[in-house]
């Protein structure tokens, strides 16, 4: 049985999130899944039931254990947005270089570029970026991003891995949010501006986009699924990387994130899920 090591903040390993859905997809595809969740500030009080299905490593020292050393793939779900996540990731994953060389390290690029992520690791040539939107069930194609320091030969094992969990892949150029997370972040930002400016209610904005433009979800409900903090981080990263004001996050969105509204993940976003 092939094994996968998934590095993620513990709180993110939940149904509906990219980390949680990828972990579940790996289990469903018969991978031996080990979670590496080094302690971070956002950790929940208890480890919850979801992690019972996996081998859970909490300390860098545990990366010496066979469960980690035998991994065929490493999935890194620590976001590296400019909102402090980058520093958190750097601290949390400082010890990942203890893992065997040559294993593809697939890192999420929704809120930062693959090049930026690769620069944090001792072996940047091991890193391949990937990006996808949610809901994960509806995603048939995942984006692959090759860091500037990366090794193109690892694109093939990355493709093969996603194939085993039922997803096609498509390589796009490196940049924060790849293609669809970037486009979607911009659509959400506009909907948030429209809401802030009192153009219409959240429900009416979403209804209008579903019925008037055939969107699969209203942008504000979609933002709640994606995570408001993540959408905000994508916009911020784009603004920094491209230096263009068109990416500045809507103040309402920024304030919601500051207030701890994350969307479905904690039940409060543009809508309430209590």
């Amino acid at each position, binding site marked *: 049985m092939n094994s996968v090591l998934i590095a993620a903040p513990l709180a993110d390993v939940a149904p509906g999130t990219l980390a949680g859905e990828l972990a579940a997809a790996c289990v469903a595809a018969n991978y031996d899944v080990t979670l590496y969740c080094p302690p971070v500030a956002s950790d929940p009080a208890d480890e919850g039931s979801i992690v019972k299905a996996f081998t859970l490593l909490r300390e860098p020292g545990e990366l010496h254990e066979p469960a980690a050393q035998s991994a065929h793939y490493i999935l890194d779900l620590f976001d590296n947005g400019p909102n402090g996540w980058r520093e958190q990731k750097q601290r949390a994953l400082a010890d990942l270089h203890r893992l065997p060389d040559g294993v593809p390290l697939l890192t999420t690029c929704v809120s930062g570029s693959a090049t930026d992520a690769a620069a944090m690791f001792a072996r940047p040539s091991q890193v391949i970026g990937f990006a*996808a*939107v949610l809901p994960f069930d*509806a*995603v*048939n*194609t*995942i*984006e692959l991003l090759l860091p500037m320091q990366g090794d193109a030969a690892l694109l093939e094992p990355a493709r093969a891995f996603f194939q085993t969990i039922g997803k*096609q892949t*498509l390589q*796009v*150029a490196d*940049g924060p949010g790849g*293609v*669809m997370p*970037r*486009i*979607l972040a*911009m*659509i959400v*930002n*506009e*909907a948030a*501006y*429209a809401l802030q*400016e*009192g*153009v*219409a*209610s959240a*429900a*009416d*904005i979403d*209804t*209008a*986009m579903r*019925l*008037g*433009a*055939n*969107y*699969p979800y209203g*942008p504000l409900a979609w933002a709640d699924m994606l995570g408001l903090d993540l959408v905000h981080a994508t916009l911020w990263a784009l603004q920094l990387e491209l230096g*263009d*004001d*068109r990416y500045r996050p809507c103040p309402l969105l920024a304030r919601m994130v500051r207030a701890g509204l994350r969307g479905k993940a904690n039940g409060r976003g543009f809508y309430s899920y209590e």
Partner: protein
Amino acid sequence: MNTQNSKLITQNFTTLGIVGSGTMGGGIAQIAAQHGFSVILYDINTEIVTRSVGRLQAMLDKLAAKGKLSGDDVAATISRIRATATLEELAAADFIIEAAPEDITLKRDIFSRLDAACPPTTILASNTSSLSITILGGATRRPAQVVGMHFFNPVPLMGLVEVIVGQYTDEETVNSTVALAQQLGKTAVRCNDTPGFIVNRVARNFYGEALRIVGEQGATVEQIDQLAEQEAGFRMGPFRLMDLIGIDINFAVTQSVFAAYFGEPRYRPHPIQQRMVEAGALGRKAGRGFYDYSSDKEAAK
């Protein structure tokens, strides 16, 4: 407030007047007549409006041939539509929807003539996609009874109506318009009078950001369409959709929203659009856009 749950004080309408019998006016006349309203359909001359009614008849006959309507339904629907080239005849309608060409001078003139011709309580609605309802209200002595009723093309198939609330539009007018949209089988959303309303504004970056990514060589047109459809679940990727809408039409909407917000960078048009429009690569209707349709007889129609 949720439109569906708001307490409605509404008037009941039986006769709708429609100004302009083109794509949108014709579609609105069709659904209104099909939903049992009497319709007075106006256009600038008898020939145009007669041709429009002929087109509606042909459309309904087609629906009947597919078994979606009975022959009696077709006859009854057509009998509810009265065609006219005399604007003053619209005075007999209790709600008027204007769907004339998108030109502020022309629309202001129509609103001021309707204002003079119709009883002071008649609601005057515009189907404009980009002009300000408040400005149209300013061309009348009844700004409180002027409202936007933004249908989507094709009217019989698209389920949405944006009800646009001008700065001076009163609550009763808004509620009556929402109720009318519902009686026409549509879902109504309430939207304040701002450039692009909801859909044409929020959708801008589905196209604009995709164009920028192509411009940066971040991905190709085909790749972005594939990802929009297979990763994000959009029915059609941004480039296929621009080809369908018309790259010129899409570019014009972007320019109008960009100008209306005095150069806000989120709406900035892209040079690729302008180049294609000026080269005549307008999309399906031109046989050529982001994709090549020259061998596609369906698209060329």
